[in-house]
Each structure stands twice: as C-alpha cells, then as structure tokens.
C-alpha cells in the first residue's frame, strides 16, 4: 500500500483533470454525454467499493439507493426547479434509506448480507414499479427539467445545455472522489479495512463493528444516491430499471474490472465499462453477452484489476524509463 503517489502519477492525474475540464471545448455532444455517464458510474462504483473492497461487504442492492436518489431528485425538480435542492434532496433521501435498510442488513455478513441487500433492492424496485401515483409506475417520471442552480435572491446559473450540466457533474464527481480519497486514508478508513481483515480482532480492539459497518453502508448509499440524483436532469426521465438488480451489477462489474484493492479501480472500471458497452452496442443487440465475455477476460487477465496492473506494473516501468534506467 503506497502512502504517497509517485510524481508521474500526480502529473498524469492533473493532466487528466485538465483534460476533463477542456473536454466540452474539444469534443461534441456525444463524448460529453458519455463522459457524464462515466462520471456517474464512477461515483456509484466508488461508494460500492467502500463497502466491498474496504469493508468486505458485497452489496447487490446499491441500485435501490441509486433509484431513491434519482426519484427523490426528480420529484423535487418537478415541484421546485432548483438543481441544488433536487440533488441535495435525492442524496438525503438515499442516505435515509441506507440508514434504515443498512441497520437491518449489517447484522449479517458474507452471502447473507448480499442476499439481504438484493432483497431490499428488489423491494425498492417493486415500489418504483407499483406505486403509480408517486413514481409513475412503468412510465416513470417524465419532463424533469435541467433546472438552474439557484440560491434565491443571491445567485442563479442556468445549466440547461449539456455542456454546462457536464461541469456540474464533473465538479461534484471530483469532490466525491476527493472526499472518498481522504476518507479511506483517515482513521475511519483504517477502521473499515480492519473490519474487512478481521471482524473479531476489531471488536476486541474496542470497536463496535456493526456500527461501523452501518457507517460504511450509509456512505455507500449516499454515493449511490448522488450518482442517481445526477441522472434525471441529464435524461429528463426516471424509470424503474434504475432500481433493478441488474443495475446493481454495474458497480460490481466496474469495480471488478478496475480492481477492488486500488483506490482508482472503480473509476478505471467505470470508464472501461461505459466505453466497452458503447462500442459493442453499435455492432450487436446482444451486447450483454459480449460485455460479459470481455469482463471475464479482463478480470482473469489483469489480476487484481486493470487499475492495479497499471499502478503496480506499467507505472513503475514508465518511471524507470523516465529516469533513464
């Protein structure tokens, strides 16, 4: 576990962030749209990996919290067209759902935890499907505005164009990534990793393990909620499939692709996932089969994930070339 990033990695990271900020100036609408999808999945997967890679809990219900964030944001925007309010409301709703369902789920670990979260996720899916008056049923909610960022009487900024909305997503995603980076390197992050390595040892270190699992679950729920809340203003609709368990599999696959034991793994995985999917759907409607096959090859071929191979193999090699050895 490297405590400090090598200088080359820092340079590359800064270059990447600059590139992300310049993207709308260099590329058309479609690449920007794809970039938004990648950023949203990155946030979703980062939250998932706090649970999985850092705390050792595999959740198959994260789409439930994603959907709570999405529906919450959509309902607010339909009533009050203020983006800040919609996003904050969506995230808060997801957080509350995560506290309640987490309280019931973290009593168990391993497969029992995974099955409980799967069940709770499907419960949210059926609420989205059946509670027609509130969620619009299978039609979902439509006509969600890409509302302006507004602080009444003080400040107002329209983000109606895709390019402007991209910056909203970019800034919030970068903040979320930064916060997570700080978190996993904090005493709290150490506590969670300790729980992953040995639950009993941690309890006997004087730490209430279950309470900390709930903390991790809630943070993962907040990240899923943020990812979900960012989507309705982009797509202008929300539909039940957001809550479906197959959507819960997306952060799982992205994280496995990128690597569960590397901080940036879920982000690299989100990029690969969206790009691979985008390329395959052009050729076949059976894209899931191909995506599945590619994920299997990459997971088997890149032990520990693509990001881990880059960080531990390619980067040191580049560094050696860079320093003339």
């Amino acid at each position, binding site marked *: *576990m490297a*405590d400090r990033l090598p200088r080359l990695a820092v340079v590359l990271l800064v270059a990447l962030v600059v590139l992300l900020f310049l993207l709308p100036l260099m590329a058309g609408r479609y690449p920007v749209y794809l970039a938004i999808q990648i950023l949203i999945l990155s946030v979703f997967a980062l939250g998932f990996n706090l649970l999985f890679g850092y705390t050792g809990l595999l959740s198959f219900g994260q789409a439930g919290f994603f959907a709570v964030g999405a529906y919450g944001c959509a309902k607010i925007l339909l009533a009050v067209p203020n983006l800040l309010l919609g996003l904050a409301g969506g995230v808060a709703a997801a957080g509350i759902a995560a506290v309640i369902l987490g309280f019931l789920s973290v009593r168990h670990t391993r497969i029992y935890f995974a099955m409980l979260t799967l069940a709770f996720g499907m419960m949210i899916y059926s609420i989205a499907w059946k509670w027609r008056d509130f969620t619009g049923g299978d039609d979902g909610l439509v006509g969600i505005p890409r509302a302006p960022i507004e602080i009444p009487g003080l400040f107002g900024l329209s983000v109606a164009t895709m390019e402007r909305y991209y910056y909203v997503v970019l800034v919030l995603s970068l903040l979320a990534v930064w916060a997570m980076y*700080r*978190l996993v*390197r*904090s*005493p*709290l*992050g*150490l*506590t969670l*990793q*300790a729980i*992953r*390595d*040995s639950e*009993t*040892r*941690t*309890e*006997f*270190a*004087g*730490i*209430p*393990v279950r309470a*900390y699992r709930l*903390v991790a679950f809630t943070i993962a729920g907040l990240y899923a909620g943020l990812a979900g809340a960012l989507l309705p203003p982009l797509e202008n609709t929300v539909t039940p499939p957001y809550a479906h368990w197959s959507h819960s599999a997306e952060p799982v696959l992205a994280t496995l692709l990128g690597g569960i*034991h590397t901080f940036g793994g879920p982000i690299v995985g989100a990029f690969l996932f969206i790009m691979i999917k985008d390329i395959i759907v052009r050729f076949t409607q059976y894209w899931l089969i191909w995506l599945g096959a590619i994920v299997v090859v990459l997971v088997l071929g890149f032990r520990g994930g693509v990001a881990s191979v880059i960080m531990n193999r390619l980067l040191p090699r580049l560094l050696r070339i860079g320093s003339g050895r």
Partner: protein
Amino acid sequence: MDELLKTMNLRKAFGELVAVDGVTLTLPAGRLTAIIGPNGAGKTTLINLVTGALAPDAGTIVFKGEEINRLPTHRRIHRGLSRSFQIMNIYPRLSVLQNVLLPVLARRGRNGQPFARLESETEARAEAEGILAQIGLGGQGSLPAGILSHGDQRLLELGIALAPGPELCLLDEPSAGLTPVERASVLELIRRFSVERRTTFAIVEHDMDVVFTLADWIVVLNRGRVLAEGPPAEIRENREVREVYLGEELEA
C-alpha cells in the same frame, strides 16, 4: 492484592455439552495466572465469556468491582480487558504499524475520524511505534503484516492485544506453533510486560515447561470445572491434577 476479575458460578452450555460448569475464579491484579487443562476443558470458552464473545447461561462476571455480564465486547475492551486468539488473528493486509495503530486510535477515541489524516495522528503513531519497538518489530512497521513469519505474527498479535493498554490481558495459547527460539522470545515478552506494565496476564497454555516457569498461580480446569488452583509448586504435587492431566508428562 486487588481483585481485578472475579467470576461466580459461571456456566455455559452448547446443547448437551456443558463447556463451562460453575466456574468461580478470582484474578488478583499483578499475578500471572496460567489456565491449564486437557482439550475441551473449557479454557477458551472461559476467555470468550469473560471478554463478551459469548454470553453466559448463568453466573456473574465482575471486573474492577463492576458486573460486566451484559456489556458488549468493545465496551469491555475500553474498561481495560484485552485478549489474543488461539488461531492467528491479525490484519494481514494492513501494515504492521497499522495493526497496532488501530487499537491505539480506538482507545483514544480517534478511530472514527473521517477526514483526519492517518499521518497526522502523531501521538497515536508514536505510541504504536513504541509498542512495535517493545515487541521487537520496530523496523518492520511499513511491511504488510501478512508477509511476516509465523513467529513475528504471534509477536504482532501480542502487540495488538497490548495496544489498548489493558489492565487484564487474556492470552489464548500465545506460544502455539512456535519454534523454541520464537517461543522463548514471546514468553520473555510476556514476562517483561507483566513486570514493567500495569497489565495483569492470564494465559491459556499447553506447554507445561512454560506454565511452571512463567506462572505465579495455576488454575486447572477439567470438564468445565475448576479442579484445583494454587501456586505452581502446590499444583505439581496435587495428586488429582497429576491423575487427570499431568500424570504421563511428569512421570515420563
């Protein structure tokens, strides 16, 4: 001597099997107690009851004058209890330093800080490094704990158990699976901590050499009951103990 821990008529059954059957024991502060007995005598169950890993069916546990029967494990640790495990229990993927740092942070109430940097926890780090130096792993703080040798992992586990600064530390077979050299260093460490620190030790041990050289007091368990207790010299002469447990080893 102060009574640090007292159990009264402690009982725990697993179905038909009564693992601990009315154990009444007193552990005074500062006396190194060894708990011995054949396999299945209830030694580990007793440790699990005292530390809260299991709930007793009957009886009371009093620690420092207060009943702790219903206290969850992590609270008992904060009151001054600690333990090690019979089966190796460390954090293999964390660094050696982090293994010891975590319980130190927990004792200081700092382990839940979400945005503080681990690097900035200077006081806790210094304390953790101090513990590593004492257990002889001073130079290995940044290694992943999982790659240490078996003996070093045992030392590290002892360090983790001592990091909360316990008043009473229960060690479950601390020298199991060690080479004679490693065993000597683990035992030397226990002896030193016992003398230097305010920690009182109770160890479960199978090796009779260890027990008779290290312990001030020996408790013999058999089938969940206290068969005998007393200073080593007395236990060595106890006929009942010799019959059920020590017989062959002493006569050999």
